[in-house]
């Protein structure tokens, strides 16, 4: 018999930044993210949120699933995989993308970083190695799972440019949204991308795990005068809803994991038609999506501006039909937006309901001192993100 091996790690894993995040943690509120411990909040969820909108919030995104895709056919492979045209994404650019099954149902969304000519990184919430590998048939391409090999931080907020600038990162002023660049950090290569999940000025930093703590220290030292704060998921989630971004398992389910019929969604139903390019060569789900475009979708994702100040968590959505209110869908994410002073939500309704400007109702339940109350609140369908400040797109960014 060979020697007895150690069992696989039984509890939660710690990211490369964990020792530093732990030092800043006062609440001891953690949850599990793909096997790793990730903070709900570190000292105060509300204040952490304002770090994103007022200073800079730093969030450890190391548990995000990452794949390295290389080889002569890498671009063609990705073009076949996702619905948008990857030929347009030049080296040094990042693309938000969705990929579908043959029925045109979304398996996941994610970001694809064109690191160098013919070399890509795909980041997603879910793990898809089996699916990605199955899709390689006929392509000269190599896919490597590299989640553990890359430590990453989201650095988000109006002062984020100033902080990274103060850290000595050169050329950042010319980096446009969805751009990426490679810089030197203490002798190792670091990738900087102008991406994020907050719809604010912000960057993501990608580095090898051995340099993670040094990066954290340099970042927080540079950020000292610029209101830098480590943040947890509560703050990020609020910023995400304000940005109107989709969260997997909230706004959609990976199609290959749905058990019930009709619980998956197509990109068209998720308001992502702009990501579907019928002009490019064949891609997974193309035929089904073309058919759906012809005959119309079943569902429509909506952004709602809701009257009043009571967040519409898990509410049903109604529309008036022949003078009567009829239930047409439900809320998936809801929040009171502190920066917009708006009662905002994302939801899913039966098409053709849900066009921008449609007036709908949501049934809000709220509790006050043990007692539950119910109200029907008017809700307007909007098409723009709730929060999208000019500084998010400004190049060069200002020294806010």
């Amino acid at each position, binding site marked *: *018999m*060979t*020697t*007895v*091996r*150690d*069992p*696989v*790690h*039984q509890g*939660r894993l710690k990211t490369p930044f964990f020792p530093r995040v732990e030092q800043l943690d006062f609440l001891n509120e953690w949850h*599990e993210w*793909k*096997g790793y411990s990730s903070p709900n909040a570190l000292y105060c969820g509300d204040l952490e949120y304002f770090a994103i909108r007022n200073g800079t919030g730093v969030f450890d995104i190391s548990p995000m699933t990452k794949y390295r895709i290389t080889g002569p056919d890498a671009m063609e492979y990705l073009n076949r995989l996702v619905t948008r045209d990857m030929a347009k994404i030049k080296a040094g650019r990042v693309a938000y993308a969705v990929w579908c099954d*043959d*029925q045109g149902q979304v398996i996941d969304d994610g970001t694809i970083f064109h690191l160098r000519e013919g070399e890509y990184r795909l980041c997603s919430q*879910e*793990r*898809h*190695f*089996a*699916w990605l*590998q199955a899709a390689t048939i006929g392509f000269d391409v190599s896919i490597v*799972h590299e989640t553990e090999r890359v430590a990453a931080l989201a650095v988000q907020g109006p002062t984020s440019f100033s902080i990274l600038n103060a850290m000595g990162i050169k050329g950042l002023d010319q980096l446009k949204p969805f751009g990426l660049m490679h810089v030197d950090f203490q002798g190792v290569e670091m990738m900087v991308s102008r991406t994020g999940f907050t719809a604010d000025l912000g960057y993501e930093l990608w580095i090898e795990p051995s340099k993670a703590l040094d990066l954290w220290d340099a970042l927080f030292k540079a950020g000292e005068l610029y209101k830098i704060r480590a943040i947890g998921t509560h703050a990020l989630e609020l910023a995400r809803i304000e940005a109107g971004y989709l969260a997997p398992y909230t706004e959609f389910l*990976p199609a*290959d*994991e*749905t*058990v*019930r*019929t009709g619980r998956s969604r197509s990109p068209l139903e998720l308001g992502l038609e702009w990501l579907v390019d019928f002009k490019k060569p064949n891609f997974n789900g193309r035929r089904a999506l073309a058919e759906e475009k012809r005959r119309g979708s079943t569902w429509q994702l909506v952004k709602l501006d809701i009257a009043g100040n009571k967040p519409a968590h898990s509410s049903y959505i109604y529309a008036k039909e022949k003078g009567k209110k009829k239930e047409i869908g439900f809320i998936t994410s809801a929040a009171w937006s502190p920066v917009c002073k708006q009662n905002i939500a994302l939801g899913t309704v039966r098409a053709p309901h849900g066009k921008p400007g449609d007036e709908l109702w949501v049934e809000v339940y709220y509790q006050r001192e043990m007692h539950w109350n119910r109200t029907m609140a008017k809700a307007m369908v909007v098409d723009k993100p709730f929060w999208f400040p000019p500084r998010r797109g400004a190049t060069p960014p200002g020294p806010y």
Partner: protein
Amino acid sequence: MKTYDAIVVGAGHNGLTNAAFLAKAGLDVVCVEKNDYIGGATVSRNLYKDWWYSNCSYVCSLLRPEIYRSLELHKHGLQVTPYGGSVQFMQNGDYYGGYHDDEVAYREMARFSRHDADAYKSYSADVMRQCRFIRDFLLSTPPDPTSFKPKDLMELARIGGKFMDMGEDRMHETIRFWTMSVADYLGEYFETDVIKTALSGSGIIGTALGIHSPGTAYVLLHHYMGEVDGNAGSWGFARGGTGAVAKAIAGAFQAAGGEIRTEAGVAQIIVKNGKTVGVALDNGDEIHADIVVSAMDVKRTFLTCMDKNDLPEKFHRRVENFKIRGSSGKVNIALDGLPTFPALPEGSSLYHSDMHFIDSMERMERAYDDWKDGTWSKDPYIDMLIPTLSDPTMAPPGKHFMSCFVQYCPHQIEGRAWTADEKEAFGKTVINQIANYSPDFKDLILHAEIRTPQDIEAEIGITEGNIFHGELTMDQLLFNRPIPGYAQYRGPVGGLYMCGSSTHPGGGIMAAPGANAAREILSDLKRPNTVPENFGDD
């Protein structure tokens, strides 16, 4: 002499369930049992000192929660506690562990293959989709596809509707799934031999088929469609051994005024003028009732306990041809202490799991080859559990009971009866395979009960000791179970019904056949139905 409303033959869990629902409807019911104990194969036996053996069935998951609730089994002493995980010991000293925690399970799979770890989610979703499809029909009578009765047409429409509802792509998948081999099915998702091996076991347990035999993918489903408290696919232990299930159902039956007679084996089901009028017992006594319900398997019911002249010729032939082949045995062991498995870390949660000692698809198939050759597997698939790690009632403190389900084990050796030496050798095969991974195991054995299909048949009465009362293959499922035209629990003779696992939806401690048959009987008698409806889950 007293005449009953109904006689139920066999006090296994299905017979008792049937009797309980009939009694709840106000019928005067007697349940007769050949042994001096009840439970049939759902039994806990005191065979050595203070040890209680789940010496036939050993785990619980399929028991329909609707029946559990409706018969208030908790009031009659039943408690089912979940257990988790599995382990596959490997010949190279390594092991593959299946863990309760999703992420730990993922990491363990990824240790062998990232591809397989990622594929597991869609595999689970695909199997769960099939489970949801079939689960909805467990507590209902299969429709007769040749009938024009409104009830049959409605049920056919319901099945068709649920099927259509899956969408084109998933309908194709379903049709393939029902006919595939478990090896082919797993091969579509996974690349790692030991992971496929671990998952394939559920495709052959209780079945005289190999992992490469078509139809075994469905058997996998049969083991996945259970639940413990709504956790689909979970398995649990009945506190006190599986006999606690039969005891609790018997309690519900007796509370409803039912009578149980043990040591009352049925020699003959008596038929007069095309109708059953009662049963003749082995001791010559007769019991009379207009309704006789057999919980025995169909072969025993019709070939042993009935006069051939009372049955339609074709029906008789079909029963003769019903596939009910002995394929598994059991070795039940009293232990002086907990054996150690040095491959596992001390205190590993995997001690509480299903343990297996076979690590490749090839070994799985070769185990079946031995069965085809008319002998027990020399390198068997063992499903081993130590329920006393969580159940304090089955052995004295610090001592343990080990249940080993063994596949494959034929009903006869090369067409003749087992000899005592062969039975001994079969037991040794099992003990040796486990001892390969646990050096102190043999020294801890205080007593072992070795059971071949022949022993199970002789004691419990199930033909060839087949745990499902007949193979779970497409030709013997749904409206084909047990025999086309007789899937609605009614026998070919007036007043005669079937409620054992030979009927839809088949074996395992599910109690659905017993309940479904009760619903049909009450409907024929125009009595109010006492059998609960499927919970449904949308």
